[in-house]
């Protein structure tokens, strides 16, 4: 069932702004185009999955057929033809690699361009362990042995299904069930790979875990699924970076991230998303439909989402926190930048269920060009969540007069002892600030990026160091050409 993909054109890096717009030329092992039960069986067989998982996928697929694509978001895009995608594409390799030396050199070169040379990574002092997802299959996981010493499991989800079926079976779909929404349901049916993390009781993960996602093969939907379980008293910081090569057709990305946090545990999840946003005229770009949710199951548990969204033609993403355990804490820090014809509808949900739960939302949106951006959020306090506390702040900055910025918060309070505050402002870059910079000899574009970086600072400081530098650069790249 393997097909040779045609040799795609290599896009000249220097000619375009999108630095990551190159295509790795290796033959991939794809499923035929289209989606039906046979394709799901094919994926499941390819990955040697147990029967229960295949059955679960099929259930999800049957349910998905009954669902309709949601239209409530302020997003306009051409209808997606789910039958004209490949749902499985794996880099073709004879034997699965045992060490980095066995990994195809083209793959390694791709990562080098992205700035995560695995070879180097391994040599570097243990800063980051990377689980690189190349299209649908995890090609190499570094530092695994080192993490295993402490009982930490960090591997691809397919491996986890093979080696830790009990954990996967217990938690997969427990935070985002396949009935949750259209895109999550599709993902449940066809997910190909992703990362799996288990931090045992009382363990503080000694390094930051990281995944890089790349969409490579043409017409491939990427459906990765990440499952993170933080057992009692543990801590982990997880980084996710996304880049996709430049293509003219819109690529589909529908991912799920599920996080389970038990008593006294803490998870910090950071994302830098710079999938290809499409060109000046809105041609191409990635459709990014992501369901991310963390369940704080135990008392005193904590989750913190930090995201920098600069890419994708269409973003539909609401990282959420279910604050079940008493005293649990949910945080959401977001910077979203849209330029040209990008559209983003993003925000969060904070569901307060346990007593004395607190949540904080800081969202900064910057729209430029002809883009449109929406913050959509929900803060819900259930009748039993006494002492709940929420603070939300959503600020938007508009650059140019043809972009749009929208704020749609929902605040539902059913407990009198809860204290909820929400604030939002929208404005443009003030002329005084700009004048101040210009007067001191700073170019207009540079001045804007300076002001924007200041505007986002509150969020950026929550990013781990490696990401913060990259993210600041990304903001500048994203806003290029939006001034003057």
């Amino acid at each position, binding site marked *: 069932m393997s097909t040779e993909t045609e040799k795609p054109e290599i896009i000249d890096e220097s000619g375009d702004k999108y630095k990551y717009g190159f295509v790795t030329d290796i033959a991939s092992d794809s499923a035929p185009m289209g989606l039906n039960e046979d394709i799901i069986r094919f994926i499941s067989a390819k990955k040697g999955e147990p029967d229960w998982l295949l059955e679960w996928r099929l259930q999800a697929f049957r349910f998905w057929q009954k669902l309709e694509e949601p239209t*409530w978001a302020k997003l306009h895009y051409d209808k997606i033809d789910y039958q004209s995608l490949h749902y499985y594409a794996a880099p073709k390799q004879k034997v699965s690699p045992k060490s980095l030396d066995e990994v195809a050199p083209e793959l390694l070169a791709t990562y080098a361009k992205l700035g995560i040379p695995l070879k180097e990574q391994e040599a570097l002092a243990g800063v980051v362990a990377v689980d690189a997802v190349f299209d649908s299959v995890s090609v190499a996981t570094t530092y695994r042995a080192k993490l295993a010493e402490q009982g930490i499991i960090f591997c691809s989800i397919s491996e986890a299904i093979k080696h830790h079926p009990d954990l996967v079976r217990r938690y997969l779909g427990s935070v985002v069930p396949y009935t949750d929404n259209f895109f999550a349901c599709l993902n449940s049916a066809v997910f190909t790979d992703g990362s799996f993390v288990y931090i045992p009781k009382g363990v503080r993960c000694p390094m930051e875990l990281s995944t890089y996602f790349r969409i490579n093969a043409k017409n491939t939907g990427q459906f990765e699924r990440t499952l993170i379980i933080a057992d009692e008293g543990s801590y982990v910081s997880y980084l996710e970076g996304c880049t996709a090569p430049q293509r003219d057709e819109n690529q589909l990305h529908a991912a799920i991230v599920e996080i389970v946090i038990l008593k006294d545990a803490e998870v910090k999840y950071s994302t830098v998303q710079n999938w290809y946003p499409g060109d000046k005229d809105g041609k191409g770009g990635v459709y990014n439909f992501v369901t991310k949710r963390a369940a704080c199951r135990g008392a005193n548990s904590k989750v913190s989402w930090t995201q920098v969204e600069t890419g994708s033609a269409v973003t539909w993403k609401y990282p959420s926190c279910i604050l079940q355990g008493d005293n649990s804490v949910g945080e959401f820090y977001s910077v979203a930048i849209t330029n040209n014809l990008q559209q983003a509808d993003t925000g969060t949900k904070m569901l307060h269920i346990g007593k004395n739960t607190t949540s904080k939302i800081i969202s900064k949106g910057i729209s430029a060009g002809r883009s449109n951006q929406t913050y959509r959020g929900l803060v819900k306090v259930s*009748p039993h969540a006494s002492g709940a506390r929420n603070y939300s702040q959503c600020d*938007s900055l*508009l*650059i*140019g*007069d*043809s*972009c*749009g*910025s*929208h*704020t*749609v*918060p*929902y*605040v*539902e*309070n*059913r*407990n*009198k*002892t*809860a*204290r*909820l*505050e*929400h*604030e*939002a*402002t*929208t*404005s*443009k870059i003030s002329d005084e600030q700009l004048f101040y910079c210009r007067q001191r000899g700073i170019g207009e574009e540079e001045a804007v990026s300076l002001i924007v970086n200041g505007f986002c600072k509150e969020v950026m400081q929550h990013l781990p160091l490696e990401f913060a530098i990259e993210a600041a650069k990304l903001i500048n790249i994203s806003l290029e050409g939006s001034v003057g």
Partner: protein
Amino acid sequence: MSGLLQNIELPDSTLPWLFALREKGREAFIRQGLPTAKTEAWKYTRPRDLQVDDFVMQTSPCHCSDECDCEHHHHSSSLGDALPFDCYALHFDNGHLRHEHLPLPRGVQIMPLSDAFSFADDIKSRLGKTLNLDKYPFAALNTAYLNEGVYISIAKHTRLDKPLALVYHTHSCHDNLFFNLRNLIVVESGAKVELIEYHHYSGAEKSRYFANLVNEIFVGRDAVLSHYKLQDEAFKAVHIAFNGVKVKGGGAYRSFCLQRGANLARNETFVSLTEEGASTEVNAAYIMNGWATIDTTTDVEHLAPHTVSSQLVKGVVGGEAKGVFQGKIHIAPHAVKTEGRQLHKALLLTDTAEVDCKPELEIFADDVKCSHGAASGELDEEQLFYMRSRGIGEDEAKQLLIDAYLEDVLNTLPDTSVKQWFASKVK
């Protein structure tokens, strides 16, 4: 739905434009039906109560027999004296305009809407122009029954010496009364007027009725309309009101609405600032108990540069009641140098009370200043303790704090006897 859409013969159906308008409303209502949980604009306020088929419409004032003890059979001027300040008052009984002579100053023209169909020059160009029938199902329903109500026109540069009041008395002798009212209010350029709406009930305590009201308001250049409303319906009543307002350059629409009655109430205000320099204030307060749901929905549309809007809404929710606020500020492309402010605050008094709020910004222009804020919480324990320790009883202390809480929204009213009247109603 059949209960709400009845085949009743309405007068003036010979006027082709009117007939067509009513039909349009009827069709739009049938198309939309009653809002459900999936209707975004009615997400928190579900008119479940209206699904029953037992509503009774009265096409003319009640002519019950003498045994009937409806108050309106021996209605006296005592009802007219319900307002403790001097005003030009128009009275409605169970949804019918009371025909009585009202001495009016120059420049003020008032007639029943049914007369205006034939006699008012601008009726065709104005009626139904402030609302989108496909967006507001109840306004569509109201349009299907377009007949009762009043037409008010204030001529250029007219200044009224005292407020104009619309007093709605409901004292239904029939259970499940359903009535539709449409008022068309035109304030010509440079005129200035205060309009007071008072919805009250006097009759059997458990009376259930449905009042479906639409005000269409046109504020001319540099004209000012102050619109103050008190909704104090029976505790089982349903009150749904839509105010469609268009404001021209330099004009101002200032409104305040206090809601304290009904089992299900919604006061929706849609203000369109169509020309440069137009401004609006949409303020509201709600106080509730029992099982009521009270909804305040606002939508301010800035269509021109240099337009200003501000909204302040405050609520106090007790019992098992549910307070809802949905507010929206929309800024059209090129409507630069605009300012939109919005603040909603709610106080929850009991463990079973609920407040849902959805403040929304929709902005398509860059040179704007817009903000919204929302907060909810309970009475401050420390403040309560402070007063209790000084010998003030718990109930009294709470009342003092509630009064203080609502003071800033009441202060948006001009300092007159009207304000005192509203202040007395928040107790």
